[in-house]
């Protein structure tokens, strides 16, 4: 047994030595320079707002990243006749020329919202307009332009002013807004035209708290109730909900009543005020199996 132990110890020492040598050779990784990539986190609605364009948009120098993509001249000529005082940056192909050509100063309501949002997240919004204009017009996702989206650093220089600074200046309101909101190209509206998934979910959750669909009736699970609902700006109902469909089932009336009650009881609803236009008048589908809002 002693002999066996000796053999075993020798074996292990050999193994350890080999392992030491093996790992020692590979244990010195070179220190890698840390590359920090600035990334802004935007909610979908912020992203939509950024796309708001302005008639008096100035041409902003092209960020370095985008240069490679293609020569700047071609796409511009048709599109940009009217709006730009100077020759603007080239616009991505997808833009319908009309929208831009007709661009006017934004409606007041929308503008206020935007300014508010910007105060909350001044940094992100300030940077945004520059790369967006070049890379994205519609919300279509263009994988080729990711780099341009990500790389905001070079763009910061041409950007006019930090919004923090602007806030301190006692400029007249209009002027202040103009600075907060550097003019750029895009659609006439900055407002989102859709409610985000979060907002829809919140709305659904709020209603389903109050909704007690009648149970037990034959086929009552298949009963859909459609209600037409009109809201006021504060999230309350303008008038009692109206039925928008009908069914001969004897269980339809209780189901419809339950849905109406639910809608009526749960007000006021916490809805995004700046998207009032989208939820002001909606048809809600009450499906006992699943509820589809909006």
């Amino acid at each position: 047994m002693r002999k066996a132990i000796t053999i075993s110890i020798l074996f292990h020492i050999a193994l350890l030595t080999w392992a030491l040598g093996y790992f020692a050779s590979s244990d010195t990784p070179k220190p890698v320079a840390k590359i920090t990539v600035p990334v802004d986190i935007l909610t979908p609605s912020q992203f939509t707002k950024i796309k708001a364009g302005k008639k008096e948009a100035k041409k902003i120098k092209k960020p370095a990243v985008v240069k490679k993509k293609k020569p700047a001249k071609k796409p511009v000529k048709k599109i940009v006749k009217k709006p730009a005082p100077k020759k603007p940056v080239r616009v991505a192909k997808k833009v319908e020329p009309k929208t831009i050509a007709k661009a006017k100063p934004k409606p007041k309501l929308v503008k206020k919202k935007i300014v508010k949002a910007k105060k909350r997240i001044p940094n992100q919004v300030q940077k945004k307009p520059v790369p967006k204009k070049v890379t994205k017009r519609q919300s279509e996702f263009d994988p080729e332009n990711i780099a341009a989206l990500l790389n905001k650093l070079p763009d910061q220089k041409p950007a006019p002013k930090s919004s923090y600074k602007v806030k301190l200046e006692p400029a007249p309101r209009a002027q202040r807004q103009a600075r907060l909101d550097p003019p750029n190209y895009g659609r006439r509206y900055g407002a989102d035209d859709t409610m985000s998934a979060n907002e829809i979910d919140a709305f659904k959750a709020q209603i389903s708290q109050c909704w007690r669909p009648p149970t037990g009736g034959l086929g009552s699970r298949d009963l859909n109730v459609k209600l037409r609902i009109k809201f006021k700006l504060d999230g309350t109902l303008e008038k009692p909900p109206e039925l928008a469909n009908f069914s001969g089932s004897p269980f339809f009336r209780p189901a419809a009543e339950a849905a109406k009650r639910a809608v009526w009881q749960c007000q006021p609803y916490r809805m995004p005020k700046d998207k009032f236009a989208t939820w002001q008048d909606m048809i809600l589908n009450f499906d006992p199996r699943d509820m589809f809002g909006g």
Partner: protein
Amino acid sequence: MIIMTGVLNGVLATATVAPHSDLSFVALFLSAHIVVKVVMVGLLASSVWGWAVIVNKTATFKNAKKEADDFEKAFWSGQHLDELYQVLTQRTNQTLPAVFVAAMREWKRSIDGAKSLPGGVLMRVQRVMDNTITSEIDRLERRLMFLATVGSTAPFVGLFGTVWGIMSSFQSIAASNNTSLAVVAPGIAEALFATALGLLAAIPAVIFYNKFSHEVSRHIARLESFSNEFMAILSRQVDVRSEKL
């Protein structure tokens, strides 16, 4: 074991110079928590002992097989069994020859000087052979249980070390408020090292335990078939002698 710890100490002494950030074995071991260190040392020790058992058992089974083969050759060669017995009593025997010698001793004791055949001789010989077989098996199986234990528990012990190491690396995340890989990596590497040691100890243990237990059962079968054959020979002898008387 003493040699081993001496070597380890030497290695550790040289390693203290190494910077903390490198992932060599020694640095990993040194930066480990005391619990993880205990686990690693224990696993290494059980690996050493396990290999010692493996080496020892390999030699034992090889010898036993050789002895049994040689004996069977001699036994069936037509040599007179008394002569064979005389030769074999000169030396220490294992397995088959040991069984044969024990049986012959009992047979001789019963027969020598007896006028008539004593009744229970066959039964006594059978008992003696069974006893010898049992002790032989016991000798062959000794320390095999250690291999079985290491094989089944070493992975868990290593896993325990790993869990502990990962827990401490999470603590270092919490302490530094930093989730970068550089903070976590040493802890995780050290933790995985414990698992690696556990597997290193367990895998050969399991493999050789299976091999050895198979060989033990083959040996048992061989011993028992021999004892049966030998009993047949002896009972034929008994019949022949009782006719003569």
